[in-house]
C-alpha cells in the first residue's frame, strides 16, 4: 500500500487512487503514510507477562484505525498473545528450556487504508537453571551420604539438576518432585542416623509428597516420578543402605493419608 501511494501523484489521486469507481469530489487528493512505532521491553523471563504498546504510532493526516500484531517465534517457545488487533499487545511467556529470541511485529493502518510496520526483538531468558546451584563435580557429589546441598533447601544439588532435566517445562511438577526428593533425602539421613524421630518426620514428608503428587497426577505417573527420584537420590551403596535402614524402621508403624487441602505443595527453589 505504501508503494501505491508513493506512486500516486497528487494530481491524479482522485482518479488513480480511488476505491473503485467513485467519483466523489470530496475524496482527498493525497494521504501521508502512518508511522508505526511501539514500545516493549527488550528482555523478559520465562513464566512472565509483558506488554507492547503502539501508543507511539501516528498518522500525520488522519488517524490510525487498526493495529495488527504478530510474532516471529523461530524456536517455537510457549508464547500466548492477547489483543493482537488492539493498540496494546499482552504477551505471556510460558516455560522454556533454553533462552531464545522472539520478534514482535506491528502493522498499523490509517483511515485511508495506508499501512506501516515496525518490529523489535525481545530476548526471553530461561531462569530455572540459573536459580539452581551448579552441578557439583561427580566425585564430591558421591563422596558422602548427605551429598551437597549448597542452597540448603533439603534437596541435593545434583538431584535438583536432574529433576529440572526431567521436567524442564513443568514447574508445578518439579515442585512436587522436589517435595518427594526432600522426603527421600530425609529418609536417607534418618536411616543413616538411626533416628526414629527423623524417620517419623521423613514418613510424614513422604505422605505430603503422595498427597501433592496425586493432586496433580495419576497414580501411574506418581509411581514413575517416585522411581526417578530414587534413581537420582539413591545413587551410592551408602545411600541405598541408609534408605534400606529407614525402610526397616517403618515396619510396624502406620502413616496417615493426609488431606491434600492441608498440605503446602509449593517448594521454594
Amino acid at each position, binding site marked *: 500500500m505504501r508503494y501505491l501511494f508513493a506512486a500516486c501523484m497528487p494530481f491524479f489521486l482522485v482518479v488513480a487512487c480511488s476505491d473503485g469507481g467513485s467519483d466523489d469530489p470530496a475524496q482527498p487528493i493525497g494521504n501521508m503514510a502512518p508511522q508505526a512505532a511501539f514500545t516493549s521491553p527488550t528482555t523478559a523471563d520465562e513464566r512472565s507477562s509483558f506488554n507492547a504498546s503502539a501508543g507511539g504510532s501516528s498518522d500525520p493526516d488522519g488517524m490510525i484505525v487498526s493495529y495488527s500484531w504478530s510474532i516471529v517465534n523461530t524456536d517455537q517457545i510457549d508464547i500466548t498473545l492477547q489483543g493482537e488487533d488492539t493498540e496494546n499487545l499482552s504477551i505471556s511467556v510460558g516455560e522454556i528450556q533454553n533462552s531464545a529470541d522472539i520478534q514482535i511485529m506491528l502493522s498499523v493502518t490509517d483511515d485511508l487504508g495506508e499501512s506501516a510496520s515496525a518490529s523489535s526483538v525481545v530476548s526471553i531468558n530461561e531462569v530455572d537453571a540459573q536459580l539452581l546451584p551448579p552441578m557439583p563435580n561427580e566425585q564430591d557429589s558421591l563422596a558422602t551420604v548427605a551429598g551437597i546441598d549448597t542452597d540448603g533447601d533439603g534437596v541435593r544439588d545434583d538431584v535438583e539438576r536432574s529433576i529440572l532435566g526431567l521436567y524442564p517445562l513443568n514447574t508445578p511438577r518439579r515442585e512436587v518432585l522436589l517435595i518427594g526428593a526432600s*522426603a527421600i533425602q530425609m529418609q536417607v539421613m534418618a536411616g543413616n542416623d538411626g533416628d526414629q*524421630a527423623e524417620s517419623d518426620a521423613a514418613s510424614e514428608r513422604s505422605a505430603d509428597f503422595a498427597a501433592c503428587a496425586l493432586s496433580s497426577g495419576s497414580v501411574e505417573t*506418581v509411581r*514413575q516420578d517416585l*522411581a526417578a527420584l530414587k534413581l537420582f537420590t539413591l*545413587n551410592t551403596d551408602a545411600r541405598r543402605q541408609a534408605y534400606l535402614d529407614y525402610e526397616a524402621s517403618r515396619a510396624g508403624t502406620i502413616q*496417615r*493419608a493426609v488431606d491434600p487441602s492441608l498440605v503446602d505443595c509449593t517448594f521454594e527453589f
Partner: protein
Amino acid sequence: MMKFASCAAAALVLCAGVGSAQSELNGCTSAIADGDETNIYFSNGIRTDSDEANVTVQYLRGIYKQSLEGSFEGETYSFYSAPNPTIGTYSDIVEVLNQKLEEAGIADEGLSALQLLELLRAGLSAEEIRRAISLAVGISTRVPPVITELFLEEAEIEMSQAQAAAIANIGSVEGLHANYYVSDLQAGKRVFVIAHSQGNLFANASLSAAATSLPTAADSLGMIGVATPAAQQFASSFYRTADDDRVIQALSLIETVLPANIDNVPMDDFRSISNHLFERDYMDARLPSRDAIDAELVRLAGSVPFPALDAGEGAIRATLTWDEQPDVDLHAFEPNGAHVFYSSRIGPSGFLDVDDTTSFGPENYFVECDTIELGVYTIGVNYYSGLAPSTATVSLFLGDGRTPTPRTVTLPTALGSAGNNSPQILFTIGVALQDEIVRYTVE
C-alpha cells in the same frame, strides 16, 4: 466422644472447642469426628516400599473417602498405610536383577539392582528408563543401550518367579499392627484392612492378634484381600486373586494358596506382565476385580458393627500394651505438675480411662483437645508386678494426626508401688505456641 471435664478447668488450659480456627489453638488439626469412625489400612505387598504404600493409601483415600462418607451419612473414614518389612524379603528379587545386570555386563556401571527394581515396578518403558538414567549422576553411558523392552520383559518374568519364591520363604509373620487395630477398636472405630500380596499375610496375623486381644470387638474388623498368597484369610474374609496372576500362579506350585477366583482379563489387556500389581492389575476401573472390591467395601461399610467406645482420644493419646506378666502401669506427668496413673486417674488435663492388671493391657491415657495445656507431657511405664522381665510398648496418637513410632522397652524386674514415682519415660511431648498455632513436638 467421652467428655470428662468442663473447659473451665484451669487457667493454662487452652480452652477451645471444635472447628478449624479453634483447632489451631489446641493443635487438633486432625479433626476428631463426632460420628462413627472407620480406619481403613493398606497392608502392602512384597515389592512395595513405604513410599509407594503412602502413594497407594493416598490413592485409596481419593477413591473411597468421599463416596463412603456420602453414602453413609455422619460417618468418617480415615486412611492409613501399615507398612510391612518387605525390604528384607525381597532381597531375592534384587538378586535376580543383579544377575540380569551381570549377564548384560553392566553390573558395576552405576545402576544398582535396587534402582532398577524401582524403575521396573513403576511401569516405566525402556525409553523412559533410558531417559531417566541419562539424568542421574554416577551412571555410565554404557547402561542405557542395554535397557531394552526385551531386557525389561525378561526381568519382569524372572522377578515374578523370584517374588513367589520369596513369599514362600517368609514363614510365619508377626502381627505388627495389632496394637494399632486394638487401639482403634477401643476408641470405638471399626478397622478395615485392604491387603495386597504379601501384605495379606501380615494383615491376617495382625487382625487375628487384634481379635484375640479384644474378642468382644472382633466383629468390628474387616478385611479385603487382593492377590493373596495365604492359604486362609482372616475370618474367611473376602479376597480376589486373578486366575492369570503370575506371582500367585508360581507360588501355587510350591505352596498352598487360596484358589484364584476372578477372570480379570480386560478387552484390551493393559495390565503388567505379572498381572499382580495392585493399582494397575487389580484396581483399574476397567477391571472386574475393581468392581468386586468396591462392592465389598460398601458391604463392609454398611454391615460391620461399630465397637463400643472404651478409650478416649484427643490432643494426646498414649496406649500401653505388654506381655503376659500381670501388671505394667502407664504413667503421665502433665505440665501442671499432676501425676496421672492408676491411683490418681483424673488430672487437670488428661485421664487414665483404661487400666488393666491382668496381663497384656491395654492401658490408655488421653488429653481432650479442649483441655490440652502448653508445656511438657511425659509418658512413662512402671513394671508393677510379675515374675519375669516384661516387654512393654507405648503407642502415641497426636491430635495433629501424627502417630510416632511406638516405643518398646524391656523392664527387667517388677518394682511394685516403689516404682510409681520414677517410671521409665518413653515419650516427652512438648506443646508450644508457634506463630499463634499450637504445635506438638515429640522427644
